[in-house]
């Protein structure tokens, strides 16, 4: 009965209801967009960074991370690949043999990072072949050539088709030395990588290090919105934990996690301020509603309506209006984010160049994680319900005679 009364009441003055619901609507919409934007930026950044480096998750020989030596490698295992790819959230896997060596060309010598990769699988993930600035990309896992970071090449003063000499420590303390033709130069955004990396077909690097069929890691790529820790657990269950270890990018690149953590903590403060502004807008609307209805409320009390009942009806009304606003807000938020996902905002000017230099897509990416919709809507709903207690409080304090005469 009370519900019905409240429902009828809110439609009696449509204009007021619409104005109030609009406040809630925009509150939900803005909160969702804000969160989607900030989360989306990180998701995108993480996705781009991990696709060049560790992958979202990496599988190593147990103990490898503690002691990153070529001796802690494991044998390639087709069954492991199958097991990983069986998980529907895993999009790609990248087997790698990652080592260090001294690289020299004529008089120059430099310590470098050797990444033994599967060129085909790698380019599916991070479009490595698009980053080639001179020469060509390596084609297969036994191509007898290497691709160098452009920065490294300029330090070694070497060009495409020159021969690079590599010297390192091989499997079981053997010595590893080999000569390779430089097939291409690659420009990478991450300066460290650009100045240090040598990409080598996987089988060539295994051969050079005397580590046939051995890998240091298998990198696993996922969808941007996958629950990282959950997936790590489920992968751990599906493979032998006595042989392998699974690590997330957060464990492998704590500094990036730290940077994001710091930045998103900042965003918590900012979104707090946003909630504050939103609450105030809502509060203002509710306050107006009470002013407008003072007369009517006074009459209701005068004719014998109990104050707490009236307060309860007002609360119900406010909750209903909030629900309408939240509901429409979520739909609009969903549509806005769908729109921006389909037609992303592109950066322009200097920022675009900087981002592209870093190999990050120069778009503003919106996250469409369902968690955002649920959490933001609940927060705004909670806020508006809390605020809705105010009209009730006002009613409890209302003096009918004054109200009627107002």
């Amino acid at each position, binding site marked *: 009965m009370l519900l019905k009364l409240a429902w009828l009441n809110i439609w009696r003055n449509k204009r007021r209801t619409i*104005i109030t619901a609009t406040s809630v609507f925009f509150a939900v919409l*803005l909160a969702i967009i804000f969160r989607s934007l900030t989360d989306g930026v990180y998701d995108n950044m993480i996705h781009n960074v991990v696709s060049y480096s560790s992958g979202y998750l990496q599988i190593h020989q147990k103990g490898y991370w503690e*002691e990153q030596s070529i001796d802690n490698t494991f044998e390639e295992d087709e069954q492991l690949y199958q097991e990983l790819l069986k998980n529907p959230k895993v999009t790609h896997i990248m087997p790698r043999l990652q080592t260090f060596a001294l690289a020299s060309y004529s008089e*120059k010598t430099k310590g470098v990072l050797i990444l033994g990769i599967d060129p085909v699988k790698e380019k599916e993930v991070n479009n490595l072949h698009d980053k080639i600035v001179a020469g060509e990309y390596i084609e297969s896992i036994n191509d007898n050539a290497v691709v160098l970071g452009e920065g490294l090449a300029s330090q070694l003063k070497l060009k495409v088709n020159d021969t690079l000499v590599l010297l390192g420590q091989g499997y079981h303390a053997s010595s590893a030395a080999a000569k390779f033709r430089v097939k291409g130069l690659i420009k990478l955004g991450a300066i460290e990588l650009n100045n240090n990396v040598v990409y080598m077909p996987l089988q060539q690097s295994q051969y050079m290090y005397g580590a046939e069929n051995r890998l240091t890691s298998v990198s696993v790529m996922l969808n941007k919105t996958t629950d990282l820790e959950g997936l790590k657990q489920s992968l751990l269950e599906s493979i032998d934990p006595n042989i392998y270890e699974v690590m997330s990018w957060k464990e492998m690149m704590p500094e990036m996690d730290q940077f994001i*953590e710091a930045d998103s903590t900042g965003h918590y403060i900012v979104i707090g301020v946003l909630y504050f502004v939103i609450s105030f807008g809502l509060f*203002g609307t509710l306050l107006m509603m009470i002013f407008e209805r003072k007369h009517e409320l006074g009459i209701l009390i005068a004719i014998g309506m109990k104050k707490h009942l009236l307060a309860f009806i007002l609360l119900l009304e406010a909750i209903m209006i909030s629900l309408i606003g939240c509901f429409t807000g979520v739909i609009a938020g969903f549509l806005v984010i769908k729109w921006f996902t389909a037609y992303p905002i592109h950066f322009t000017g200097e920022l675009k160049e900087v981002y592209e230099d870093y190999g990050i897509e120069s778009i503003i990416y919106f996250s469409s994680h369902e968690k955002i919709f649920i959490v933001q809507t609940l927060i705004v709903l909670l806020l508006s319900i809390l605020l809705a207690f105010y009209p009730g409080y006002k009613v409890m304090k209302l003096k009918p005679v004054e109200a009627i005469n107002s």
Partner: protein
Amino acid sequence: MLFQIAWRNIWRNKSRSLVVICSIIIGVWAGIFILSFAWGLYKNNIYESVYRQLSHIQIHHPNFSDDNDSKFTISNTDEIVKKLQSDNRIASVSSRVISTGMITSPTTASGVKIYGINPSLEVNQIRLNGYVRQGAYFDSGKENEILIGEKLAKKLKVKLKSKIVLTFTNTESEIISGAFRIGGIYRSKNISLDEVNVYVQKKHLQELLALKPSESNEIAILVKDEEQLDTIKEFIIGVVPQGKIEDWKALSPELNMIIESFNLYTYIISGIILLALTFGIINTMLMSVLERIRELGMLMAIGLNKRKIFIMIMLETFYLTLIGTPIGLLIGWLTVTTLGKTGINLSMFSEGLSSYGFNSVIYPALDQDKYVIIVTMCLVTAILSAIYPAYKALQLNPSEAIRKI
């Protein structure tokens, strides 16, 4: 008279006017706070990079940064350093020798950048002594002492006093190996650099590289007032005409990216907040207009034309804005000044941060011109928000309005 009516109108419904005034106060405050907070966060990054790593200005041999080869030196550095130190706009100066090579422990090897530093000068420059976690900052007096990062130590599985070998090429392109003993382990706030930067005595590295004592690869300069950066750069060109002089912005394009992205997102976020403010004001002013339909109808009947009604509503909002803005400005300024002294400890909000040892205290700060921008933005927003309600008032038909009497 219109001004007077508008002014008195806003005091008729005090609560409503207070709601709008408070919205504006909150809008101005929120704008100031968020911008200053973002600025503080970003300054934190810059401060860390500039004062503990890059310095304001670096001088190299023109070929050095391309090749990273130690043979590209600046000669007579002692003289240059002295000359620069005597300038009172410059806070500190130090010179370094730099080589890249490999560090080898009994278990593994890693690529490193080797800095030969003058420990006493660097106390004022990168202040590495403050980051030493274990051991001491070059106090043994032995020339083969080395300072390495905690992360690298972990990777190499070495401890204090462990012996490690550095391998690099000298200026004659010969491969040189030198044994060093770890005298200290440091941890800076940039963990990824901790893994690659190692520090040794400059004199010793010069000998190993076959450099003369007066030759250095890098001169780093901290200035007292960053405003004077450009004029100081001019001055340095006069002192070291053969050198390549770069400021921190040129040295670290990454930093530039952080700044650029930060600016962009800050503006987006401020935009969202202003939008939220807009809806608050539109709603309240709309209610105020709709509530007074009959009164507005009467005003039209007695001869106020629509332009005047429009002006009246706009004036009301304008007055409210005029009251709210200075208060918001004051509160915002007080917040920034207070928090700028005490700082905001982010670790309060995130346990993860403190465990990383990240510098989690942010000192909000804001330039004067940013205040002006925010105030202008809020003013414009408020006035724009009033247009719709005022326009709504224009659409009133006097007879219809009056019929509601």
